[in-house]
Every structure is written in C-alpha cells, then in structure tokens.
C-alpha cells in the first residue's frame, strides 16, 4: 500500500494524526518516520510541518531515526527492576554490542527502554516488535536473540 493509500483510510481530521503516524511507521522497513512522511501527513491534514513534528517527538513509540528490523524494548519499571531488569539490560547490551537507543551494524536490532508492558507476573520482561517475552535470564535472552537472527 502506498503512503497516500494509508492516509486515505482516514478522514481528514486532526484526531486521526496519531493513528496515521502509527500506520506509516509500521509500513516503513526501518520502523521510523522520515521528514517526507511528516510533510505528507502535514499536507494531507493541512497542518503546519512543525506541528506534526512536535506531536511525533512527544510520543516515545515514534522514531525519526532508522531502526532495526527488531525493536527490542526492555521493561524498566519497578516490578521488573525488582526481579532483575538491570542485569537483563546489561546482558542485552553485551550480546548485541550496542547501547540503548542504538542499532546493530547489520540493521537487525535496535535496543530501547520501555515503561511497564503489563506482564509483571513474568518479570523481568521485554518486547520484540509485537511479541512479549517474560521470565528472562541470560540463557533465554541468548536463545531469543539467536532465534530472531536465524529467522532473517
């Protein structure tokens, strides 16, 4: 679907802005919004570019930088912290050889932090794209990352 087709699913009203940004970002191979995307949306809704930019940067789920195919979001909220999220974060950094906010050289993984993802019963937890993983420990992280690498 072209970007314009995505936009045309929605009425030309400002309240659809966030849904549009979601859909366009999801359609992008590198999980991000380009300057052209923002301009396209701004034109479609007849809003200033600066306005669309300010909304985009307010919400953490939107990115203006290219990201990996797999966005790894590690939960940083207190319940996960209590169950060892700090160790998990360190392990992930080591395995992927990147810091938070960075993308691996092969473009496969981006490491991010997230607030509570609501699976505290199996803390510590993380999300990769739409999938949730809980009860994490070093071996399990290795397995999950390896599985994702093989799937490419």
């Amino acid at each position, binding site marked *: 679907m072209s970007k314009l087709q995505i936009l045309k699913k929605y009425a030309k009203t400002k*309240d659809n802005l966030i849904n549009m940004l979601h859909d366009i970002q999801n359609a992008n191979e590198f999980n991000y919004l380009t300057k052209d995307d923002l301009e396209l949306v701004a034109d479609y809704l007849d809003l200033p570019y600066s306005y669309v930019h300010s909304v985009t940067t307010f*919400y*953490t*789920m939107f990115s203006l930088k290219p990201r990996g195919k797999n966005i790894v979001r590690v939960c940083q909220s207190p319940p996960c912290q209590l169950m060892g999220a700090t160790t998990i974060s360190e392990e992930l950094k080591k395995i992927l050889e990147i810091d938070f906010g960075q993308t691996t050289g092969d473009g496969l993984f981006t490491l991010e932090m997230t607030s509570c993802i*609501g699976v505290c*019963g199996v803390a510590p937890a993380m999300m990769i794209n739409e999938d949730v993983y*809980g*009860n994490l420990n070093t071996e399990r992280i290795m397995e999950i990352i390896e599985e994702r690498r093989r799937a490419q």
Partner: protein
Amino acid sequence: MNIFRMHILIPVDEETIQSGVLHVKRKLELELYNRNLSSEIKVIETGTMGISGSGVIMVLYPDQVYYYDVKEKDIPLIVEEHIIKGRIVDSIKHDHGEKSRACQRIPEGVCFSRTQKRIVLDKCHIVNPYDLEEVIANGGYRALEKILSENFKPEHIIEELKISGLRGRGGAGFPTWIKWNGTKNCESDQKYIICNADEGEPGTYKDRLILEGDPHKLIEAMIIGGYTAGASKGYIYIRGEYGLSISRIQKAIDDAKANGLLGRNILGTDFSFELEIKRGAGAYVCGEETALIESLEGNRGNPRVKPPYPVFSGLWSKPTIVNNVETLANIPDIIYRGGEWFKGFGTDKCSGTKVFTILGNVEYPGLIEVEMGTTLREIINSYGGGVKGGKRFKAALVGGAAGVFLSDKLLDVRMDFESLKENAAVLGSGAILVMDEDASLFDILYSTLEFFAHESCGQCSPCRIGTHHLMGIMKAIKNGEGTVKDLDDMISISETMFNTSLCPLGQSLIMPVKSAIENFREEFRVSETKTTKHRKSETQRRKQCHLM
C-alpha cells in the same frame, strides 16, 4: 446444537502467548481431531484466569481440573489419560536441559481461590471473547436490553449508580454518578464518552486483562453511558503497546455492530451510538484525563488546566465523560441487578470489589478481584501465597509507581480508598508490589524517579525541574555523596511539586518519596555531615538542573 461432554478452557493473553499457548492449543485440537474427539470435546479460548507466572494453563470442565505449565509434548498424555480414560494426571516430569518441570493440578484454595468475588472479571475466564453468542448466553448485554426494553429514564440510571456508591477505579476514587449526572445535565449538540484504557502505571495490567477477557462488557457499559448522558459517540483510548487488546476490542465492536447492539438504532430503538478505538503512542501522562483528551484530538499529550472539567468541557470543548476500564466494567451488573445489590459488597464508604495485581516477591503473582476493604495481609498471604521462599516481608509498594511504600506495621490496613487515606496512602491503580527482606527499596525508588523524570511532559516547571532534581539527588546518594539534608530536600522538593504541579503526575511523587524516606530511612546510605566532596556534588547537580 452440539452437546459436548467436556469443555477445555485455555486462557490466551500476552503472558500465556509468550509461554507458547497458541502452539499448545493447536496441538490439543489436532490431537482431539486425530482421535475423533472433536465432536465430544470443545476447546474454548478465554481471557485471563488471573494466574501469572505459571505458563500455559488448561482447565477441564466439568472435572474442574487445572493443569499449569502445560507444554506441547504433555498434550498426548493428558488426552490419553484424562480425556479418554478419565484419570487425572497428577504430574508429568520431563527434562528441560537441567531443569525438571512439573505439569500438575493447581492446589485448590491458592491464588485462583473460590473466595474471590468477581463482578468485573466474572466472564473473563469462562467465555470466549471472540464469540458474541457465548458472551450473551453468559449475561452479556442484558443490562442494555433491560434499559432499552423497559424504557429506563437516564435519571433512573443515575439514581442506581448513586445508590451503588460506585467510585472511579482509575485511582482518584471520584463518585461515578456525579460525572455522569454532570454531563447528562449539560446542554450541548454533541457529547462524548471516553474509556481511559491508557494503562501505563507500572505494575498495573488489570485493564488490559479486562479488555482482553471481556471486551463486550466494556462496550455495553459505554453504550449505557451514552444513553444516560445523551452522548452519541464514544472513544476507547488504548495504549499503543497493547496490540492484543486493540485487536480483541476491534473484533468485539465489529461483532456488536453486525448484531444490532451498536451503531444506528440499537436493538431496533431510536437510540444510536458509535464507538471508535484510538491508539496511544507511548506517553504515561496521557493516562491523565485532560492529557488523554488532548492526545485524542491529535495533539501533544499535555494536561489542561482544570477547571473546566471534562464533564462540562472536554473533547473538542464538548461535555465528556472519561471513565477507567474497571469503573465501566462494573456498570452493566449495577444496572441489571440494582445499586442496592452492589452496595452489599465492600465497606460503607467504598462499595463493590477491586481488582488487584499482586507482584514481586510472592509465591503466586497474579490478578485477583476481592471486596473492597480486604486487608493487605490477606491479599498477600491468601491470594499471593505469601512472600516467596518463606522470606521476611520488608515492604509493599501499593498503588503503582506513584504509590506508597507500606511497612509491616500496616499489613492489616484495609484496602479501600478511605482506610488507606487515613494511613496517608492511596489505593491508586490497585498494584501491590511485594518486596522481601533482600530487596533494595532504594533501587525501586530510583527506578520510579527515573521513570517519572522520563515521563514528565515538561509543560509545567515544578514537575519538569523537580523530577530531574530528585533524580540528581538519588544519583548522588547512589555514588555515596548524599547527606541527611539531601533526604530532607527530597521531601521538600516533592512537597513543592505536590502543591504547584499542574497534574497528578507531578503531584503524586510525594507519595513514594515521603513514605520511603520516613518509613525506611535506613535504606538510604547518607552521611550526617557535609564534606567538600558533598558540596562539590551538590553544585554540580544544581548546574545540571539549570538552577544556577
């Protein structure tokens, strides 16, 4: 219609999906098909049972046998032994590398015990949320049918809500009938009702499980709200991260529409009501009702100055009801059974039930629904199975990240709005994070403040600067550069934030900060007197916060 001799319920939610429930379910269906049992045994996908950390769960009715931690390879044995031969499988042991896991029945009375009073979650674990007929057979939409067929007056519905004493379950505990009545009495060409499903409070996932387990209940409640207040349009604002909830509620809306329960001329009457989902995009502050409205309008989620309250001037400056998921989920039963019935549960000033999430160092983490006023001790011991590994209880963070650290002295506090308030605590979102003797309270507070510093929207200065200043002090203490005065400063900063912040995000930090410092001072390693090193660190911190 087929009569089945056995029903197998399998809860499917984010947590069980990550444990592989979909593979287990497929394997079970295949196994039943291969053995020609598909016409005798029905497999039903349900919402949560409330049991966390126990992998894939299967419940076999009418035997009422619970199996947990079920793996794909356990299926042939369970089918062979239990389903065909009628012999309950007590445990299956198999090796996963070095670990040995047992698949067995859940002991009765633990966690998912029968003593829970389920109003909100009554259908979550027994019906397939994708199957409207099943929902209706279990009481879905009966309240809506009642008000439409008996021509209920809006005043009548408000009166029932007033009698019921229902208060907002999002944290503030505001009487629901006042909101509904306010919007109802407004003169306006357009009114709205919004369901706040932007559940971002750390440690809280009740709303997600209500949405996933019984989406039709929420839809029914919103239609009733629309009918009462005269609103023809409703929005459900869901967190962008909650993919499964979004798809389930969308399916439920489509089904309700196709069956004349939603849309134009509901159940053949003159009443019409439209419902739409709006996705959030990752901003904690959007859980605040006016920030949510801003976000819904397509703006940055900055909270508005109140008054005017949304009840009178909300979405596009029109009268708007904003209710939490759990609050709304109580309403169909109140309307169907009456306010008096609801008042029979809970305490005098806080009627009904409350959904709690029990987390952290407990034996059985999970989701429970009990009457208001149940003691913290009972919740932790009877439902959570006590502190994990028989360790000593240190503290419980009650009410989410912006909650209060309660010490063992308050274990017998009753969990309702009033009793907690008397003890300078809050019920909040109903999250209970239990910490054992080895847990570091300092670390928990550290991550809480880090979270708030990140999530402060930056609109008002007390919160924007205050959160970073608190964070600076915490960092200094972590590096061994903290003094006693720093602790007093933290309380004073959060008090200023409480008095001057625009919205509850900045106002509520006083809760965790004050309760941690006052009740657990020994957790903070600070020195009595200031040295040159301390002074240097303080100057640096001030510079970082642009205070110099």
